[in-house]
């Protein structure tokens, strides 16, 4: 892919100060030294367990959390912003260009506002429309795209099912005509039968409006079907990134391999052992030295315990952060 990145991060870190008092202040590094490019028009997937920092990274790209190290830039055809220093009118303008879709459609919509008001709110807050007629026209246009009808606009959120509510949240995110959307676990709260419907809608809208998506999810089978590019995170680091098919066909990082083999198979006779991970993700306040994954890695050697690997790009667009990935390529499959 030779296209220009819309979002680009270089050694990006996000830390939070935790603890109070003089002696027990410390910093929790939720995102640590992450570099990645999200190409314009792509559906970029970010996966990892809870506590891996995927949500924080997504928010950093929206400038919803302070960036404490490195750089993140946003660049479309009209403007170019350094997210670390963005303030004032430029920040306001950026807000119209980047939007977020939340996980829980039951919590994300105010129960006291009609669907029309919910979708219109960003337009009013951002001052994008001058008259009520104009606002209404924009709301109707986007509602139709999200398969909501005029009748729906007069109702309150409680009258809708989970799938319909998520379509309302999507309409609200799209109404300011953004270029970049962060969808944080946007189908995790939905039933499977509805999930497919929302995913199809997101893909359709992305193609039609030429949007760039950062799709955050813990569900590998969902990202496999929707994203064209994937990044895997572990404890604030990027451990592997590649085009989706490449990653699924030949994962290079032992963590990615373990994640794949943990997906419950639909075949009842495939109750395989696979490579099960033992233990849990360490606490971000008490990170292990060396490679962050070494405490759970089945391939650990002494070097991993002391030296942290960096993200290596062998030139084929498939980057991995592991000391032993080349060796693992030649190892027989389990």
């Amino acid at each position, binding site marked *: 892919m030779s296209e220009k990145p819309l979002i680009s991060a270089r050694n990006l870190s996000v830390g939070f100060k935790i603890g109070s008092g003089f002696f027990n202040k410390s910093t929790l590094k939720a995102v640590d030294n992450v570099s990645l490019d999200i190409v314009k028009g792509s559906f970029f997937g970010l996966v990892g*367990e*809870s506590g891996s920092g995927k949500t924080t990274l997504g928010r950093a790209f929206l400038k919803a959390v302070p960036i404490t190290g490195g750089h993140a830039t946003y660049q479309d055809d009209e403007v170019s912003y350094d997210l670390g220093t963005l303030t004032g009118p430029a920040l306001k303008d950026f807000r119209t260009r980047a939007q977020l879709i939340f996980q829980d459609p039951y919590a994300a919509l105010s129960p006291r506002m009609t669907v029309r008001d919910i979708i219109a709110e960003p337009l009013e807050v951002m001052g994008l429309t001058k008259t009520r007629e104009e606002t209404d026209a924009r709301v109707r246009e986007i509602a139709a795209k999200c398969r909501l009808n005029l009748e729906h606009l007069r109702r309150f959120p409680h009258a809708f*099912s*989970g*799938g*319909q509510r998520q379509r309302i949240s999507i309409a609200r995110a799209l109404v300011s005509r953004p270029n970049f959307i962060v969808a944080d676990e946007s189908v995790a709260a939905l*039933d*499977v*039968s*509805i*999930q*497919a*419907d929302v*995913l*199809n809608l997101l893909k359709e809208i992305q193609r039609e409006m030429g949007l760039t998506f950062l799709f955050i999810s*813990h569900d*590998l*089978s*969902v990202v*496999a*079907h929707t994203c064209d590019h994937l990044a895997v995170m572990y404890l604030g680091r990027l451990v592997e990134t590649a085009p*989706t*098919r490449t990653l*699924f066909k030949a994962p290079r990082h032992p963590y990615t391999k*373990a*994640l*794949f083999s*943990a*997906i*419950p*198979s*639909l*075949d*009842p*006779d495939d*109750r395989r052992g696979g490579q*099960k*991970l*033992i233990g*849990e*993700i360490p606490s971000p306040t008490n990170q292990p030295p060396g490679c962050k994954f070494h405490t759970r890695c089945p391939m650990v050697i002494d070097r991993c315990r002391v030296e942290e690997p960096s993200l290596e790009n062998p030139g084929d667009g498939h980057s991995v952060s592991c000391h032993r990935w080349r060796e693992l390529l030649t190892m027989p499959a389990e």
Partner: protein
Amino acid sequence: MTALIDVQNLTLKFRTDEGLITAVDDVSFTIDRGEVMGLVGESGSGKSVTAKALMHLNAKNAVYTPESKILLHTEAGTVDVLKLRTAKELKIARGGAISMIFQEPMASFAPAITIGSQMVEQLLIHSDMNKARAKEISIEMLDRVGISDPSKRFDQYAFELSGGMRQRAMIAMALSTKPSLLIADEPTTALDVTIQAQVIDLMKDLVAEFHMGIIFITHDLGVIAQTADRVSVMYLGKIIEQGPVREVIRHAKHPYTQGLLAALPKLDDLDAPLTPVAGDIPSPLERPPGCVFHTRCPDFIGDVCKTKLPANASVDATHNVACHLYSEGAKA
């Protein structure tokens, strides 16, 4: 095999301001010792309400029809759970012979009481052992479910444990009274896939070791495929298909089961389009007449679906489906 629990014609309605709402409609199933039955369905299908009925745990406004029976077979004899009234009588169904683990382990532990005293408390209620012995058994159980340093964990609070650890502690607590039936209500839904795999393995080991029956409630067909021996698929309070897990997943008969399977993203074919089940599950206030699924059914065959409740048709000796496509003489 001997039946552990026999649910017959369970019909449960909730009395509300808007009238009686049917949550479970004429559901029957049995579970044997050493068997895992998966109960699958979307939110609102009545799977949790069914599970709670087994412990007579539903809210006071629940109304059971007189035909409803939940026969629990224990060594001491058979009791109908729905006939139990006093707290003392109910002990057998609530932690005695039946235990339950819930989806959200944080919400299931009291936040201000240590894990240990909660475990000891229930052992004291359900057995005649003394406190010291109860503590010993609790620590043993914590160790058994793979919690490291169990005597330290015994004195900790739920918030000090990670999600996976909490779910293990929950399982330890549920199993310490040696129940013959374990109800697991979405026990892995809140967990990461890697931890989910660990918990599933643990539960499989425990079924074998304790030789108990399990009702495994989930909306995830992958988890069902990996754990269950038999599956019941629920939709709007009815079991619409029931059979051995291989049969139901490989040769699903009901259009709803087929739809659920088709809606799942498959990892072995990334090009396959995702096909949602059209429409939404209707509100229980507007239960459709006839077959409850007819409003979303892609194989709708006409008036019979709208007006007549489909009877259970047997595909073979162990596999049943409630759909007019398979009932005799229904095809017009």
